[in-house]
């Protein structure tokens, strides 16, 4: 992209700088929550709306979120050994604020406007979330990493093999209930035995 292809932010029509307003105008039915922390804007949307919203943000006039910086997933389950680890006083309060166990965060970057945006979708264990590989091929490995490490399924992903862990690995290491060291290393000869003794979390709802 040469300098001529990058539109100058100052020349953009008024009202197009606010992605939430643009999304509300484009999708009147959309369930959309906004959250801002230290100047970072997070838009929380339903997982099913992701492809349409991301495509609009990428191509919509004045938005130009043309670059996918990162996809990260976060697990809100409490750690098994430390029941009070979550910041919320009780699990009911946590469930109201965070409706599902996992969240997937898409960090979009608009190069013409030099702005970042976080799209966030909550997803429950066993549910799947649509893939964005058609919009950004960069999403391919980022999503594969999450499938591998967090065990969140991406519907329609073209390559579902594990990425970082060995292909015959059991479990998803980045989950909060996956033990964090201090346990016997799993080799093939003792894999089942070690697996039986892992302290997996039981989520009480």
């Amino acid at each position: 992209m040469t300098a001529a292809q990058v539109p100058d932010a100052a020349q953009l029509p008024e009202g197009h700088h606010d992605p939430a307003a643009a999304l509300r105008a484009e999708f009147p039915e959309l369930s959309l929550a906004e959250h801002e922390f230290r100047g970072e804007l997070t838009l929380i949307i339903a997982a099913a709306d992701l492809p349409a919203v991301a495509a609009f943000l990428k191509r919509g006039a004045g938005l130009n979120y043309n670059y996918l910086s990162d996809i990260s997933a976060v697990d809100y389950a409490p750690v098994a050994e430390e029941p009070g680890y979550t910041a919320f006083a009780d699990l009911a309060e946590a469930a109201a604020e965070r409706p599902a166990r996992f969240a997937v965060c898409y960090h979009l970057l608009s190069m013409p406007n030099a702005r970042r945006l976080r799209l966030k979708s909550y997803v429950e264990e066993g549910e799947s979330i649509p893939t964005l590989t058609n919009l950004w091929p960069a999403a391919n490995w980022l999503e594969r990493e999450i499938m591998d490490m967090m065990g969140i399924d991406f519907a329609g992903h073209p390559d579902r093999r594990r990425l970082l862990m060995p292909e015959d690995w059991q479990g998803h290491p980045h989950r909060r209930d996956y033990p964090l060291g201090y346990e016997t290393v799993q080799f093939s000869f003792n894999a089942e035995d070690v697996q039986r003794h892992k302290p997996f979390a039981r989520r009480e709802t």
Partner: protein
Amino acid sequence: MATPTATEERQYWHGSVDELRGLVSERALRGETLLLNMGPHHPSTHGVLRLLLELDGEEIITCLPDVGFLHTGIEKNIEDKTYEKAVTLTDRMDYLAPMSNNLIFCLAVEKLAGIDVPPRAQQIRVICMELSRIASHLVWLGTHAIDMGAMSVFLYCFRERELILEMFETLSGQRMMGSYIRPGGVWRDLRPEFFEQVTAFLDLFPAKIDDYEALLTENPIWIDRTQGVGTVTPEDALDWGLSGPSLRGSGVNWDLRKAMPYLGYENYEFHVPLGEHGDVYDRFLVRLQEMRESHRILQQALATIPRSGVFRSDDRKFVPPPRSELGQSMEAVIHHFKLWTEGFNAPDEEVYVAAESPRGEIGCYLHGTGGNKPRRVHFKTPSFMHISALPLLTREHLIADVVAIIGSVDIVLGDCDR
């Protein structure tokens, strides 16, 4: 070639062939093209990268990178560390530019916890970043050249890199894994010897870049091997998530230091070198130019930085007191004890910060718990994105070009696998 039977197939390929369906061409499944492993111990894959190449003669039909051999669970381990203690783990990701990993994690912690960094500490960080950039680019240039058969460039590059490693030793006591950058600033003040070392280096370095250029830039063999190889269009580069010099080699004018300045980069004068064709040669030129620009930034930073002064925040809730205070002040002892046992708390919120590492955009997603340990940290690393784009870059090239292409996107497997 006859179609192999199931038993024969098993001799060559230990996974199920069905797993490859849709990833390689149908011809490969019929045995008409050759599936060849390159790595994980091939010297020119710059670490433990395995490529599964589907070859028709010497031409590459598909390339399937396989990573994870260097996965050390750094993100998972950080979930069990207080924020300050986790800095030492970040060094081990991108081991050619450990300081930029320290920096990105510290920037994320500072944003999440709300720590202010004094301007002089930011200047020290800029000096560290640009020295890291030069050191990392020197390793890139040396290994890239040796992969293509130019032995002497490697020796020259490592000779100059050694000088920078010695500076890092003066700074932090360690040549590579210094953990010098900490939340709130840096670990200790710059030593007087450091200024002498940097000044001496800055005096000699431009002539050295001229030497590298004399060896390579107009070398006909180098040009034959690199021009028109691994070409990537600006649109593809953006969609596949390329960043840093690999993106700018395609002519996309995007440098986080310029576009979204951090550490006060807006106060320095420098150019963002751009390529035109997006091939291996242009990425080579961009990185060479970047070393000259880093040299300029270093000169400016060194001219303005006071020889001694504040090097980290004095907010005692986040940054430990100096050792000298511990003998006199009870308050300092309490702060020291609290910080080194419990650490500090950060809110149950999330931040994402990004910086321009030598390889491209390195990002850190940090989610706090309200307590002293993070809930989740995720590093978006440039090598990860660049390796995932190798199928795009190597498409329809010859197997000898793969080596040139891997070198040109400057990957570090520790950075990719974390």
